[in-house]
């Protein structure tokens, strides 16, 4: 489960907004420094997910991937 999918699991409606580069609610970036993707911009009025929330989503996914089918690959 990648970072994008974790964010969409928290805010499913953002999947539709991410189909456009313009006005995307968030932006992910990988600087090849070994850290992988991180949130480089957050443009939504709702709060940016915390690392704790993202970790929790991954734990839930590992327990039951079927809970996260909607929007995962959009």
């Amino acid at each position: 489960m990648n970072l994008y999918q974790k964010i969409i699991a928290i805010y499913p409606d953002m999947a539709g907004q991410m189909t456009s580069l313009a006005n995307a609610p968030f932006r992910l970036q990988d600087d090849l420094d070994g850290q992988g993707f991180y949130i480089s911009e957050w443009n939504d009025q709702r709060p940016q997910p915390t690392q704790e929330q993202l970790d929790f989503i991954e734990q839930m996914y590992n327990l039951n991937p079927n809970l996260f089918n909607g929007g995962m690959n959009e």
Partner: protein
Amino acid sequence: MAQGFTKGNITLPLPITQGGTGVSTQPSFSVYSNANQTVGAGIGYTKVSFQSESWDTNSNFDSTTNYRFTPTIAGTYLFSGSLYLSTIVATTRYSIAIYKNGTLAKNGCLLQPSGTDTVLNFACILQANGSTDYFSMYIYNGNAGTGCTIYGNDATLTYFQGQWVGP
């Protein structure tokens, strides 16, 4: 050796016929990837690594660690580049972007190819302060679940270039 014409931080070369080198000292580089690079899935921007240099007149391109251009002469720079992508997903959007100081500066054309490979091209003009400003190329992969591959080891297909063009 005879010197060129200098005004401010700009030095134009003296022609060979007048005893000069005829070669500009303004920064210019052309680099390419020496191996394939895997781009991860997840709708985001990934830095492109360029480990080989065709030229780098002022040694301003870091082709070892950060894969970025930090020009030591202030001015306006023209950047261009190309990425050959394979194992792409049809109708997914891909783009080349130039980042300045780690922040998105210019985005390139957004393609939604129908095949399994494509070539992205890009050009833009940006200004540099000649000391701390640096520039890197990123690729945008618009697919949440599938990454792609940047074909490397071919300077004709996957490259990044920059040239000082004016003050």
